[in-house]
C-alpha cells in the first residue's frame, strides 16, 4: 500500500533530486460501448447522459522513480501492468492524474508493438531512430551494432510481419538498448527469446543499469524482477497493492495468487460437502475432470493435524489430504490416488490406497467413503496442486485399471519458506551428513584428500505412510 522510505530515497549514482518518472493519481478508464452507434450518441449527448460502461483498467497510481533506479511491476494478467507501461511510454493518455517523464524513453511494449509491420527490419530501425529524434547519420553509425546484437541475418530486409516472435523481440530489444535511452521500459518481451538471447538481454540491461539508465520492467520471471530491480510495484485489479522492495513485492504477489487459488479450492471443496445431499457433485470441483463416473470424488480437502482446512504448510508439518468418495452405483473395488504437482506441472510424489494396502470396501449406490492420506512436508517453498484419481483396478487394458474419476488441480496448497531450514531442490530427502578429521596430519604435497565426507540416505522410504 505504501512505499518504504528507505527504498524511495535514491540509489547510488544520481545527483539530481528530480524523479525520472513521476506518477500522480494516475488512472485509466476505458469506455465500453455496446453498439458503435452509442459512441456517436455519447459525442453528441455526452453532457446529459453516458452511453458507455466505464472500465477502470488502472486506479490512482502514484509513485516516483528516480534516475538510475530499476523498478519491476508484478501482477496477474489483466492487472493493469501493460496499461501502466503504455501510459508512461505515451501510447495511451491517462484519464486521471499526471505523468512526468524526464529523459529519452525507449519502450519495448507488448509483442507486436514498436514496429510497423509493413516496413522491413532495417526501415524500422531507422523509423525508431527518427521517432526518438536521432539523426539518420547517427543511426547509420549505430546500425551495425544493432544488427549484430539482434543477429537475425537476412531477415533484416524482410517486412517485420514475417518475423517470428523471437526475431521480433531480438530486433526490438537491440534497437531499444542501442539508442542510448535514459529510461528503458521492458514489458515481458524477454519471454519469447531463446535462452542465450535472454541471457544477453539481461547482461545488457545490467550494463545499462550500471551506466545510470532508469529501468521499468514487467516480467513473469520472478528471478528477473528480483535480480534486476530494487523496487517493485504489485498491481491487482488495476490498483496499487504494494510498492516496496522487489523481494517483498514478488512474495506478496505470490502469496496473493496462492490465497486466491486456495480460497477457490477450499471454497469448492466446502461447497461440495455442503451440497452433497442435493446432487452429485458434478461441477463443484474445478479443474480438468474426466472418468466413467460410477463413483465420484465429492470433495478434496487439505487439512492440518487438527483437521481444519489449511492453505499453507511449513517444512516438516504433516500434509493431510482428505478425499470424499460417493458411489453412484454399487461398486466392488475402487482405488483412490493422489499426486502432488508443482507449479511447472511436474508430479513430485503421490500414492494410492491400493499401493498402500488400504483397500476401499465395496460401496452401495449412494454410500460414501472418506480416504485420508498423510505425508510429511519436505517440499521446497512454492505453490503446489493436488491431482486426485479414482480407478477400478484389475480391469481394462494393461494400463492398470479404468479411470472412474480424475480431477487435475482439485486442491492447492503452498509451502512457506523457512530460513532456518532451507530446501534448495524440489524435495528434501532425509540426508545424514558427517564430517571427521583424520588423526595424523599428512604432508601437504601428498595427493590423498585430507578430509572425507560421507553421506547416506537411510530413510528414503520413510516419508510416506
Amino acid at each position, binding site marked *: 500500500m505504501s512505499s518504504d522510505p528507505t527504498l524511495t530515497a535514491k540509489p547510488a549514482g544520481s545527483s539530481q533530486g528530480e524523479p525520472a518518472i513521476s506518477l500522480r493519481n494516475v488512472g485509466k478508464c476505458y469506455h465500453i460501448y455496446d453498439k458503435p452507434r452509442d459512441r456517436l450518441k455519447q459525442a453528441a449527448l455526452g453532457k446529459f447522459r453516458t452511453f458507455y460502461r466505464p472500465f477502470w483498467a488502472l486506479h490512482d497510481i502514484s509513485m516516483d522513480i528516480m534516475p538510475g533506479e530499476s523498478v519491476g511491476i508484478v501482477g496477474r494478467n489483466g492487472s493493469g501492468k501493460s496499461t501502466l507501461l503504455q501510459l508512461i511510454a505515451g*501510447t495511451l*493518455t491517462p484519464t486521471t492524474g499526471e505523468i*512526468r517523464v524526464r529523459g529519452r524513453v525507449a519502450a519495448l511494449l507488448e509483442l507486436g508493438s514498436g514496429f510497423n509491420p509493413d516496413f522491413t527490419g532495417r526501415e524500422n530501425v531507422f523509423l525508431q531512430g527518427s521517432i526518438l529524434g536521432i539523426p539518420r547519420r547517427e543511426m547509420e553509425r549505430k546500425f551495425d551494432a544493432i544488427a549484430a546484437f539482434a543477429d537475425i541475418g537476412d531477415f533484416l530486409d524482410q517486412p517485420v510481419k514475417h518475423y517470428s516472435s523471437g526475431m521480433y523481440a531480438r530486433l526490438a530489444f537491440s534497437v531499444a538498448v542501442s539508442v542510448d535511452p535514459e529510461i528503458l521500459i521492458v514489458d515481458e518481451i524477454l519471454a519469447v527469446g531463446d535462452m542465450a538471447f535472454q541471457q544477453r538481454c539481461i547482461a545488457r540491461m545490467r550494463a545499462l543499469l550500471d551506466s545510470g539508465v532508469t529501468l521499468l520492467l514487467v516480467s513473469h520471471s520472478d528471478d528477473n524482477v528480483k535480480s534486476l530491480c530494487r523496487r517493485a510495484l504489485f498491481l491487482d485489479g488495476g490498483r496499487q497493492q504494494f510498492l516496496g522492495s522487489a523481494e517483498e513485492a514478488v512474495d506478496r504477489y505470490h502469496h496473493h495468487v496462492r490465497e486466491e487459488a486456495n480460497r477457490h479450492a477450499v471454497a469448492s471443496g466446502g461447497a461440495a460437502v455442503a451440497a452433497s445431499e442435493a446432487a452429485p457433485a458434478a461441477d463443484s470441483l474445478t479443474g480438468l475432470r474426466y472418468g466413467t463416473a460410477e463413483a465420484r470424488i465429492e470433495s478434496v480437502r487439505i487439512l492440518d493435524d487438527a483437521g481444519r482446512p489449511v492453505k499453507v504448510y511449513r517444512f516438516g508439518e504433516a500434509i493431510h489430504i482428505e478425499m470424499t468418495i460417493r458411489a453412484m452405483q454399487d461398486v466392488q473395488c475402487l482405488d483412490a490416488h493422489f499426486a502432488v504437482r508443482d507449479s511447472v506441472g511436474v508430479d513430485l510424489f503421490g500414492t494410492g490406497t491400493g499401493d498402500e494396502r488400504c483397500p476401499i470396501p465395496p460401496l452401495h449406490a449412494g454410500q460414501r467413503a472418506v480416504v485420508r492420506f498423510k505425508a510429511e512436508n519436505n517440499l521446497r517453498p512454492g505453490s503446489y496442486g493436488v491431482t486426485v484419481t479414482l480407478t477400478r483396478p484389475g480391469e481394462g487394458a494393461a494400463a492398470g485399471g479404468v479411470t472412474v474419476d480424475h480431477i487435475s488441480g482439485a486442491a492447492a496448497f503452498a509451502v512457506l519458506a523457512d530460513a532456518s531450514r532451507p530446501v534448495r531442490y524440489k524435495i528434501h530427502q532425509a540426508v545424514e551428513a558427517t564430517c571427521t578429521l583424520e588423526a595424523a596430519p599428512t604432508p601437504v604435497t601428498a595427493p590423498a584428500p585430507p578430509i572425507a565426507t560421507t553421506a547416506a540416505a537411510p530413510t528414503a522410504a520413510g516419508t510416506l505412510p
Partner: protein
Amino acid sequence: MSELVLRSSRPTPLRNLLSPVALVADLVRYGDLLKQFARREVEARHKGTLLGAAWTVFNPLIQLLIYTFIFGVVFAMKWGRLEGAGASDDAPNPGEFALTFFAAYVAFTVFQECATKAPGLIADRPNLVRKVVFPLEVLPVSVLLAQLFYAAIGVSLLLIATFITTGRISPTVWLFPVVCIPLSMFALAAAWLLSALGVYIRDLKQVVPVLTQMLFFATPIFYPIKNVPEQYRPVMEANPFTSLVEMTRQTLLWGEAPNWRTWGMLTLGGAVAMQLAYAWFMRARRGFADVV
C-alpha cells in the same frame, strides 16, 4: 539536457497548440520521419509494378494526353488566353484548352488527394496509434509532401508541353511555388481536420470523395469563370480554390503575377485554418488509441 514530458489527464492548453511556433517546431523536430514517410507514400504506389518509378511520370502524361484529346480534339474547346497557342485564331490549338485545364487540375489534385486520403490516414494504421509512440501529426504532412512531389512532376510535364505547343515558357513560373504556400496550407488544414475526424467517424471515408468531387465542379477548373452567369460569380469567388487555380494559371501559363492582395488574404486564411486544424488534431489524438 533531457527534456521533461508531461502526460496529463488534462488536455494540452489550447494556447500552446495555437502557437505557430509550436507547430513549426513540431514538424522540424520530426523532419527525418517526414521525409521517410513521404518517400514511402510515393514508393508504395508503384511498389511491385514493372515500370516502377516511371509511373510517376507516365500517369500524369497519359492523363494529359487524354484531356488533350477529349477537350481539344473531340469537344474542340478553347480557353482563349494562352498566347502563341492559336488562342485568338479561329482554328484553336488542341493543346490550349488541355494545358489550361491541366494546370488547375494539378494544383487542385494536391488538395483533393490530401483530403480524400485523410479519413483513413490514422484510422487504418492502428499499429502506429496503439503500439508505437509515434508523432501522428506528421502523417498528414507526409501525404502533402508526397502530393507536392507529384505536382512537381505534373508541372514539369505541363511546362514541357507548353514549350512544345507555344515555343515559350511563362516568365512568372518562378512565382508558382509562392502560390503553393496557401494551397499547401489549405490542403494540410483539410488533412489534419479530416484525419482526426475520420478516426471517430468512419463514414467520412465515403463522404469526403463526394465532397471533393463537388468542390472540383464548383471550382472553375475545366471551365473559365467568365462562362459562369453573373449572379453566381460572388459564390464562386468566395471559394478560395477559384483564386488558387487562377493564380496557378497566371504563373504557370499566362506570364502574370498573382494578385498579391488576394494572395495575402488566402495565405492568412490558410494559415489560420491550418493552425486550427493542427490544434484540433492534437486535441483529438489523445483519444485515438482508445478508439482505433
